């Protein structure tokens, strides 16, 4: 007789009436309630992430060039605004789920969505207003969903990737002043975030990526200057 068969034969206690089992019933209910809520928030957060990524992608279609098509730019910005405003419903759902709960217990469920949203929103704001959106402005768009400082900073760090792409785009079209302006902005954000020294999941990776983005902008600004010098020297040669 094996040990397993042996022990099954000896199981004489009545499971259903056991005190321990009754207690675990309650434990299961509590865990289920929390885990289900967590999953519901994760689902909403995923939708926010997907929509925000689409907005970011569309915003890059904004014609980067010194002669931008006014109407085309306007329609892109309007579309982005519409899409981001539509997410108010999602954020409301999250804020409803969090009512009466400890925010930080569920933070991991919605942090990705909020960060991606901040990246999209701050990108749009940058194109519209030429500056960086403040935390209190972001909060207005979150429709009651809590804004944690770490999410705001992470969203800003992610934005630097988009700034870098814009900068390189402008540099490629020889728009010097735009490229320089964006590099300066990225420089400022990089300095500021590093100064903060935020700890947390993946923050050091973000900081590394952000620095690399800045270095790419600096490289492309450098090329602009070199090209400029080349042109000047060629003109001088031709003039001779």
């Amino acid at each position, binding site marked *: 007789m094996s040990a397993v068969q042996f*022990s099954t034969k000896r199981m004489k206690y009545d499971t259903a009436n056991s005190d321990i*089992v009754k*207690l675990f019933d309650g434990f299961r209910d509590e865990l289920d309630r929390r885990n289900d809520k967590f999953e519901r928030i994760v689902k909403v957060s995923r939708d926010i992430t997907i929509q925000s990524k689409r907005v970011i992608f569309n915003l890059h279609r904004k014609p980067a060039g010194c002669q931008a098509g006014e109407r085309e730019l306007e329609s892109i910005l309007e579309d982005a605004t519409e899409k981001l405003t539509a997410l108010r419903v999602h954020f409301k759902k999250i804020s409803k789920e969090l009512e009466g709960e400890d*925010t930080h217990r569920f933070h991991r469920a919605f942090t990705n969505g909020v960060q991606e949203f901040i990246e999209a929103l701050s990108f749009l704001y940058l194109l519209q207003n030429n500056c*960086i959106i403040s935390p*209190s402005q972001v909060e207005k768009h979150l429709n009651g969903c809590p804004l944690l400082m770490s999410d705001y900073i992470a969203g800003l760090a992610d934005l630097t990737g988009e700034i870098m792409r814009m900068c390189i785009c402008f540099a490629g079209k020889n728009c010097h002043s735009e490229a320089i302006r964006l590099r300066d902005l990225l420089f400022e954000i990089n300095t500021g975030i590093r100064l903060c020294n935020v700890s947390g999941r993946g923050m050091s990776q973000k900081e590394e990526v952000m620095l690399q983005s800045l270095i790419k902008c600096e490289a492309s600004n450098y090329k602009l200057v070199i090209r400029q010098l080349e042109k000047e020297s060629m003109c001088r040669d031709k003039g001779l």
Partner: protein
Amino acid sequence: PLSESSGINAEWPLRPGAVSVGNLNFVMASDFQTGMELFAHFRDIIKEDSKVKESIKDVVDNLESCLIQLNYHLDCIHLPKEICISNITSKTRDVEVEIQTQFQKLSEAVPPSLFFKYHDKWKSVTQQIISKFCVLHYLEFGKMLSKLDTSNKLGICTEANEGFHLVLEDYLIGILMMVTELSRYTVNRVTAKDLETPEKVANFVRELDAGFKMLNLKNDYLRKRYDSLKYDVKKIEEVVYDVALRKLNN
């Protein structure tokens, strides 16, 4: 929300004379200060946050010392000789009081709305302390230490809405750690020529196993810890089997 936990006001301070376009004024790189105001404010918040983490770390260090003492007093149960539970509990009484003092300090150090922001920092030592209390309680009374009694022993609340409380997952992991220790204990009981205890432990652990089987667990640490429960159960069953087989032969 950001404004509550961090103290950032809704109206952002602007440099005097700066042109307001949106709330954070970025104009030129030389206009460094304005953007820096935002980050300086963040840095202040993070400094405050570090202070809280410091005080939590101090308490956790003290709790770890308490755990070491608990462990030291409990270790004798694994020796091949008579176990006098009242001897052990008389020694652990002082440690229990110290543990309650430390949890009191912890509850004062942690802002109530940020309980789960910092919970990871004390959960490990708490789980281990709970497991020692559970082992002690089982040896004394032959029963599982309830969640309510556990929170009383730690000197903290039982439910989340009461304040600094016992987290269910920590309690469950503490029980699982207890079972691991009981499996070691069972083996050593046989070495001590105590052939009656293994079956009692086996019955107790089977009930706990049945209880845990009722839970729907996610793929988290609790789940991982639960997965090793079956090995502890198996170890105890094998001890019971080994003993019973020899008894039948005798």
